[in-house]
């Protein structure tokens, strides 16, 4: 029982460390790294549920009878591509943010936005 679930628990710890990075870190690159880790850990979760003890890779051959489940592999192939697509788009957003705000720290960007809003409001009050 314990051994059978241990794998899953470790994978959950991995997922959560990814999620933690996304929420707790203000650096945008670090956030994207967190997302990557979160997603990769979900892939690990899928792949480990496809494993059959004593099975082998799902490439059919005459002298093998037990294979691991191929379907999660297919799903994760798709999901990996989705992951890299998100990362690429996210990074290009970060590059654009650096160009226009001069920083990639969440707090400083927020502060600049707030200052701008306050300036706008002051103008309005006049």
């Amino acid at each position, binding site marked *: 029982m314990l051994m059978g679930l241990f794998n899953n628990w470790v994978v959950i710890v991995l*997922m959560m460390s990814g999620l*933690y990075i996304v929420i707790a870190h203000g650096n945008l690159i670090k956030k994207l790294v967190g997302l990557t880790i979160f997603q990769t850990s979900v892939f690990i979760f899928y792949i480990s549920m496809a494993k059959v003890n004593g099975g082998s890779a799902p490439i059919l051959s005459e002298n093998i009878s037990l294979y691991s489940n191929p379907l999660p592999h297919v799903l994760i192939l798709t999901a990996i591509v989705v992951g890299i697509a998100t990362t690429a788009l996210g990074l290009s957003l970060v590059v654009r943010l650096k160009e226009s705000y001069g920083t990639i720290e969440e707090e400083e960007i927020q502060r600049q936005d707030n200052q701008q809003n306050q300036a706008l409001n002051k103008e309005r009050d006049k």
Partner: protein
Amino acid sequence: MINIVLLSLLVVIAIAIIRMKDLFAVVMLTGIYGLLSASFFVAMDAVDVAFTEAAVGAGISTLLMLVAITMTGRKEKVTRHKPFAALFIVLITGGLLIYGTLDMPLFGSADAPIHSHVAPRYLNDSMQEIGIPNVVTSVLASYRAFDTFGEVVVIFTAGIGVLALLFVPRRKEEDEKIASINDSMHEHHLVIRIITKMLIPFILLFALYVQFHGDYGPGGGFQAGVIFSSAIVLYTMLFGLSTARKVINQGFIQLMAAFGVLFYGCVGIASLMNGGNFFDYNVLSDDPVAGQHLGILLIEWGVGVTVAAIMIIIFFSFAGRRELQQHSENNKNRESL
């Protein structure tokens, strides 16, 4: 046993990533994380996935992140803004997941529901129905061909999105100026240039091998596309963007990206025309199995072409933006002097 070792290494790396402040190190660790999880996938019999994860997680995504930090700076600021809120959310989510695992079938048990309903048919019948030994490829390219089509469209979307965000049209004289500056910069790298010139043909050959061998072993259009593009990226890094753009210009590469998606879709349209459902390869030839072979071959080409083209587009966009930034910085420095 080996999976426990790999998993613990992954945990160590995850913790290291949380604690590191140097983004360069963080990105390299992310690459290692990708590579280790690829090794884990091999241990879990998912060779195709491992191949892709190695190419993507340890290759392309690390590369893109590195390019990005050369533009954004490599130090993280020390402040961490809401660690307790984050911890709270993470604990709740993780707790819920652990609660969920309690009723889960045990790891690796062969009689879990996941192995009993849909999957057996793929393993038992795909040889008669499709006739290729790699079951992952037959599920990917035939049973669930539409998912793969969606996947190609996702990567296409990302490529166009990156273009829409980063693409800057350049005037010709400006381009030549940047090119000449870069040429002088790149001339130092003599050793690596020669080695690269030797390697690139082999990388391209390997990409083609992976493309064609996908039916029989791990591999397929996506991996082949990534490998193919990596050869071009390597060339670009050493010989400059302008030189690479002379070989593959922007218009051509966009055309190829669009062509791959269209080619994939046209296989589906062709099966409509022949009286089957969308992506029903059986009708593509007189013999259903031969039709399946043909269909899978064709769509894998569509995938390969699009992925290679989009990866190149993404890298070119980043590199072009970077050159432009450096160029304007140089100009600024010169003015201030």
